[in-house]
């Protein structure tokens, strides 16, 4: 208490946000978990505790497990795509091009567009209509004589490694388009963060440009890759607007977040919706919490 003058004002300063976050973030997370264990499964509010009934139901719900498969395919393609493209663009820019600023902005711009708008445009581009009704990418492929490449895009119901459904890989294309530029910016910062002396030293030792990158620059990018994966991963787990803008309310493109929305808005099954929300939060925590621990430790070490 003696030192209140030292820590008191600081605490007072942050106390409004502590209070607000306690109520509106953690309080509501707690309330959501409570709803998920209640029997509130119709418009009328009821709060009797029924345990993990909604969760066990999800466990036996094929539509739910399928939405998880959709999410897995989407996430893998989305993550690999953005990392590869972002990394490549950053490497090219790092090697020095004329008008770097111009290209940087061009690559970054898609991120400024909301997923809804991105979705609507790509819905047109990825129109799977056959024959003379073909538009968008399929029509372009047709004109180029690459008819065999024209495909069903996001409504392709086939499997990939036994998972449903192949179309979700196409669903990831707009997301890759939107966020590759952002990942490029992260990598570019990573490239620029490698001290020029290190490269210089390697060159003095007779390393080829390839080996300079391979053994000096790339190892420095590991933290960037990790951060990029976390960012893409959590965006992916929550993906909702893009899917709704492109696929609408259909099982074939349903992700967990869309399924949650359908349960609550269409069927007023609040317990099941809250259970899905809780599982999504857990999924994101699994991704984010180890990362936070890692960065805190890394900061302490340095």
């Amino acid at each position, binding site marked *: 208490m003696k030192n209140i*003058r030292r820590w008191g*004002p*600081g605490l*007072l*300063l942050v106390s*409004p946000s502590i209070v607000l976050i306690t109520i509106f973030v953690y309080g509501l997370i707690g309330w959501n978990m409570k709803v998920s264990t209640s029997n509130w*499964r*119709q*418009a*009328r*509010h009821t709060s009797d505790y029924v345990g993990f009934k909604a969760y066990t139901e999800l466990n036996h*719900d*094929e*539509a739910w497990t*399928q939405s998880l498969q959709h999410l897995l395919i989407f996430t893998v393609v989305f993550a690999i795509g953005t990392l590869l493209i972002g990394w490549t663009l950053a490497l090219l820019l790092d090697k020095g091009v004329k008008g770097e600023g111009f290209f940087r902005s061009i690559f970054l711009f898609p991120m400024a567009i909301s997923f809804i708008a991105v979705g609507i445009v790509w*819905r047109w581009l990825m*129109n*799977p*209509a*056959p024959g003379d*009704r073909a538009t968008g990418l399929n029509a372009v492929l047709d004109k180029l004589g690459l008819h065999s490449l024209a495909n*069903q895009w996001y*409504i392709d*119901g086939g499997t990939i490694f036994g998972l*449903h*459904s192949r179309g979700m890989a196409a669903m990831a294309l707009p997301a890759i388009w939107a966020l590759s530029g952002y990942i490029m910016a992260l990598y570019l910062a990573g490239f620029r963060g490698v001290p020029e002396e290190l490269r210089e030293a390697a060159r003095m030792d007779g390393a080829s440009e390839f080996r300079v990158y391979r053994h000096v620059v790339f190892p420095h990018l590991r933290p960037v890759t990790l951060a990029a994966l976390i960012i893409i991963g959590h965006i992916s787990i929550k993906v909702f607007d893009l899917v709704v803008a492109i*696929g*609408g*309310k*259909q*099982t*074939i*493109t*349903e992700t967990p977040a869309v399924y949650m929305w359908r*349960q*609550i*808005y*269409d*069927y*007023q*099954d609040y317990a099941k919706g809250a259970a899905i929300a809780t599982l999504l939060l857990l999924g994101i925590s699994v991704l984010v919490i180890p990362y936070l621990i890692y960065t805190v430790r890394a900061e302490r070490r340095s």
Partner: protein
Amino acid sequence: MSDETMKHREVRTSRVKRGAVVLGLIVLALVVALSTAGCGKKKSSTSTTSAMGNCKLSVFSWWTGGGEAAGLDALIKIWNKDNPDCPFVNETVAGGAGSNAKAVLAKRLQNNNPPDSFQGHAGKELLDYIKADQIEPIDFIYNDNGFRDVMPKTLLDQISYKGHLYSVPVNIHRANILWYSPSVLKKAGIATPPKTWDEFIAALDKAKAAGVIPLAVGEQWTQQHLLETVMIGALGADGWANLWVKGADWSGAGVTKALDRYKTLLTTYTNSDSATLTWQDAGKLVVDGKAAFNIMGDWQDGYFSGSLKGDNLAKKPNVDYGWVAVPDTDGVFDWLSDSFTLPKGAPHRDAAVKWLGFLGSKQAQDTFNPLKGSIPARTDTDPSLYDAYLQWNLEQWKNDQLACSLTHGCAASNAWTADIGTALGLFLQDKDVAKFQNALVKAAKKYSATN
């Protein structure tokens, strides 16, 4: 001045500054808290005064565009002219074919802040509200206004729950219509539109051979709509009705036959890009001569024949497009209806009762329906007000057997409909009839007792 004192002074000034910032924040927090408290107070005081005298009829719906909004506006005009002391407050919520509105409504009902009347599909969609004791039975409105004499008895039976009526139907739409393109039929050598299933398959084969899409369908809900009409065709109106009663059995051969037929349509005769089309897109394929048939509700007529200005197609009925009942459902009217309710604790109950009486009147029904593109629930209205399709439909409404629509909220509770929708979504991908039927049987076992 020594370095020590300089530092000391700096610390002090920064403390003073910090103190000022904290003080400012506290003041700000207080202002926010007070102003929100003030808002709350103001709101509650206005609602008490309005309950005491100022009559306002607040009506909640999802009619925000097209013919339905025009129809509602026409009703509002009449209401405001006849009830200058109790003006209409139009509380519409747009989006999601009503699903956004229902979510908003659920919250209002939970908070005991109901509108004076709200929209819902007539039938089992209202079951949640009834069981939650959120809406009143309104048999007295039917008796006082003589609605029982002018609306079909089967209709009233199908929208009753435990012998009581809970809403007034404003309009009737029909789900089981097969829309076709006369020019495509001619080109494909189909002499008359099909009436039976076998004729339908023969016609689809001919259309396929002629190089057009035999049957245009759209996204998932339109495929559920298609399933419903195929099932009614295979089972008949009575067989269909039996699926929704307590202890209903979905495991029979009739359901299997219906699902097999449905699978045949989806795997052999429909467009491959169905999941990307809206119901309008699918219908447009027919009037554009790219598809032979489309099965959709009769709002398709409004889209086909409505003005270009209203984003419709301005086509001529019986020339650019034609219609018959879905094969094997001739004489069955698969219906759905928008209706209005009387919530418990409606702030202006007397006005709401009057509104519901007005909605069932000949004047209101003949004002609203020609604009919305639907027919009245009453059978004694003036046919000359309606277009070619609706006049044909009015005749059918008087004579047909009635079947309650699943896709449009009449046949089953929300929870049951949800399970059927989920099973259908999976079926559309794996096309496994046995598994689908199994899921439907399970859903019926779970929900039929409380339907």
